[in-house]
């Protein structure tokens, strides 16, 4: 069979998935594709198109944009974080690898049929999602660590002002093998297999140039109400994200999330991304009285309301409780966000995921939070908050074991632009 024949199988359009639903996709499936033709369930009622429609696999989060996707985007059910170290011999090679990374991320987030080449060549896509890569609300967010700006690539003079290696906070027990690194890629989607597929494809894209240093998988609690707005729970069983600033408030995001005017010009539209792998000692937590748990957090476990309140989104009214009779002065929510005029500018946009990764050496569940925060200034925001939390009573039950500081540049402006292009153009 000639290569031309093979490539003719690619006529099914990627747009069919997004535009379509069942009818459009089934039309596509009529094209001579060996896998689908051989599929005995390939009929309009039960075929892949129906599955795509039923499970929102067709949802597209565009890769291109003023800002990268995966920052203000509502967090879907699954995530993987992977951090690479660069072994590119020079800046040009590094730029090419990053360009390829964006290109592949663009293809995967858009979705579409898997190209076929020579049958005797390894397929260009692992194919683990089948002959069509459904977009599944996939986002790929690319960010740079401080080490990328060291002497290797001549980027030092262009480093975002506050991009340093994440400092060691007094609560930390950072494991070097899961901390820091050159390039962070955050992969989020509605289904686990989409995330795993994307990881596999992207790692392949940069193989030989960027080497994976550490990775962690996260999941989001399902939306379990009582209302649409109710936040899911972390693995301490408390609702998480209640006091997050509203990501749809563009003016607020300019104040709290996007890089300030003092940053290098290429950094405009970007944000500092803090990732922390926070182990939660869940067996220990489960042996603590409920009241003590609630006092450590400052909220009721069931409703998520601040202590003394009834509604998750009720203000805790610290102004009426200056001595902490209702919400202890050391409660997590009170230290994290004192809700004063002076601390309003410290707020961060959190977008964390729960993790579970087996047992530790002592047979204890290795579970916790992949804490993710986007902020304009780690010094003014994240680090200030973290330093207030270093002595909170909850520290007995958590151990931050990894993570890092990264800078997520602006989004790609077009399908041929790539994340980081302005940095390399400015050198």
């Amino acid at each position, binding site marked *: 069979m000639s290569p031309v024949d093979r490539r003719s199988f690619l006529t099914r359009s990627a747009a069919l998935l997004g535009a379509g639903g069942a009818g459009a996709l089934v039309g596509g499936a009529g094209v001579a594709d060996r896998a689908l033709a051989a599929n005995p369930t390939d009929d309009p009622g039960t075929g892949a198109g129906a599955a795509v429609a039923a499970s929102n696999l067709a949802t597209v989060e565009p890769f291109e944009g003023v800002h990268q996707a995966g920052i203000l985007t509502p967090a879907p059910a699954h995530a993987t974080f992977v951090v690479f170290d660069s072994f590119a011999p020079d800046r040009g090679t590094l730029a090419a690898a990053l360009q390829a990374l964006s290109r592949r991320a663009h293809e995967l987030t858009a979705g579409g049929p898997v190209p076929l080449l020579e049958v005797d060549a390894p397929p260009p896509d692992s194919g683990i999602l089948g002959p069509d890569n459904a977009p599944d609300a996939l986002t790929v967010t690319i960010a740079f660590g401080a080490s990328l700006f060291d002497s290797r690539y001549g980027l030092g003079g262009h480093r975002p002002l506050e991009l340093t290696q994440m400092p*060691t906070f007094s*609560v930390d027990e950072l494991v070097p093998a899961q901390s820091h690194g050159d390039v962070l890629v955050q992969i989020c989607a509605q289904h686990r297999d989409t995330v795993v597929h994307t990881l596999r494809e992207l790692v392949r894209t940069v193989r030989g140039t960027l080497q994976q240093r550490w990775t962690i998988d996260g999941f989001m609690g399902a939306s379990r109400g009582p209302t649409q*707005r109710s936040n899911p729970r972390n693995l301490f069983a408390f609702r998480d994200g209640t006091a997050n600033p509203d990501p749809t408030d563009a003016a607020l995001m300019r104040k709290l999330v996007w890089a300030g005017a003092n940053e290098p010009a290429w950094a405009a539209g970007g944000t500092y991304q803090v990732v922390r792998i926070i182990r939660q000692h869940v067996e220990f937590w489960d042996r603590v009285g409920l009241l003590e748990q609630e006092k450590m957090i400052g909220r009721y476990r069931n409703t998520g309301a601040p202590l*003394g309140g009834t509604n998750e989104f009720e203000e805790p009214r610290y102004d*009426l409780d200056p001595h902490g009779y209702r919400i202890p002065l050391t409660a997590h929510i009170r230290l994290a966000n004192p809700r004063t005029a002076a601390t309003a500018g410290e707020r961060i946009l959190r977008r964390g995921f729960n993790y579970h990764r087996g047992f530790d050496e*002592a047979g*204890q569940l290795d579970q916790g939070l992949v804490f993710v925060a986007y902020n304009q200034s780690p010094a003014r925001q994240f680090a200030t908050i973290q330093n207030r939390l270093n002595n909170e009573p909850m520290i007995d039950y958590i*151990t931050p074991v990894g993570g890092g500081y990264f800078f997520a540049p602006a989004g790609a402006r077009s399908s041929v632009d790539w994340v980081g292009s302005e940095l390399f153009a400015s050198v």
Partner: protein
Amino acid sequence: MAAKRTAPRALLVFVVVAIAVPLILLVTQADGGHRAAVAAPPELAVYAERAPHVLSQLNAYGVQGVVRGAPSTPPSALPPLSPDRFNVPEAEYRAFAGSQLGLMEGQITDLEGALAAGDRAAAQDAWRGAYSRYLELGAVYLEGQIATLNQAIDGNPGGLPGGIRSPQFTGLHRIELGLWTGGPLSSLLPYAHKLAADVRELRRVLPSVQISPLDYATRAHEILEDAVRDLLSGTDVPWSGEGVLGTEDGILATKEVLLTLKPLLFKRENVLPVANAQLATLEGVMERLKAAHGGRLPTNGELTQEQAELLDNAMGGALEALAQVPGALETAYTPVIPRIPRSAVRIDQP
């Protein structure tokens, strides 16, 4: 106890979700769920003895399933204890801790001698002895001035800027690093001298250390919680791997706490006999480990898969039993959290 099979559907739903199916019938038969049961159903008696926390879970689900909307925690039936009653137990523990520090000073003297003589094996032995004595202080609550001394004596490099190269990293674990990674012994002498001074200082201030009744009762399970989190995980003993040894010291300290609390725990929810039984099981495991390793406790890395499971299992059982202690020793009724006045309620709009 009435044997009813007509448990409402809600009860079954709760229990099915939570527990293995074979247990369901036993539970629903044993207690209609109208009140918290205090004893195990006969069929579960053996299991309740082995895993008392499971019994309390079953009972809680029984109560909740019937009375929908009832408080999620059944109110404790025990009247609070007077806080004064903790004075004697805490004084006894402080005396015990002081004597351990005295022994530790002797071990540090041995350590200094072995370091000066260049005898690594003897220095490691003395280090183990000193570390063990220190861990037996488990119930001394580390706050304020004591926290600073504790950092100097037993601090880890993890939270220090610069990690193992931090000038604040000086105590037992700095010496551990040198002893187990082959550094020159003479370079460790200054750390041993500083350790001796810090321990002397701790011994001086120890009699004035105050522990709140709640904190003291909580240490009954927290000492071994720390052992699981920090020692058996290897986190605190990365170079020597002596987590099992440290755990044995945690058991000793926990037993001392329970011994001092014995008069207070008399007839309080049967907590003490159950905890003692679980600790006895755990001690039996320690003896088996010693027997399997030529009379000494293995390091974390020397545990076989089977031995690690055996130990982790016994620790889990002991911890679940010990976690019942603080609840049995409340010194006050559960405080009522004041309400936010209706007129002051403000909802954050999205």
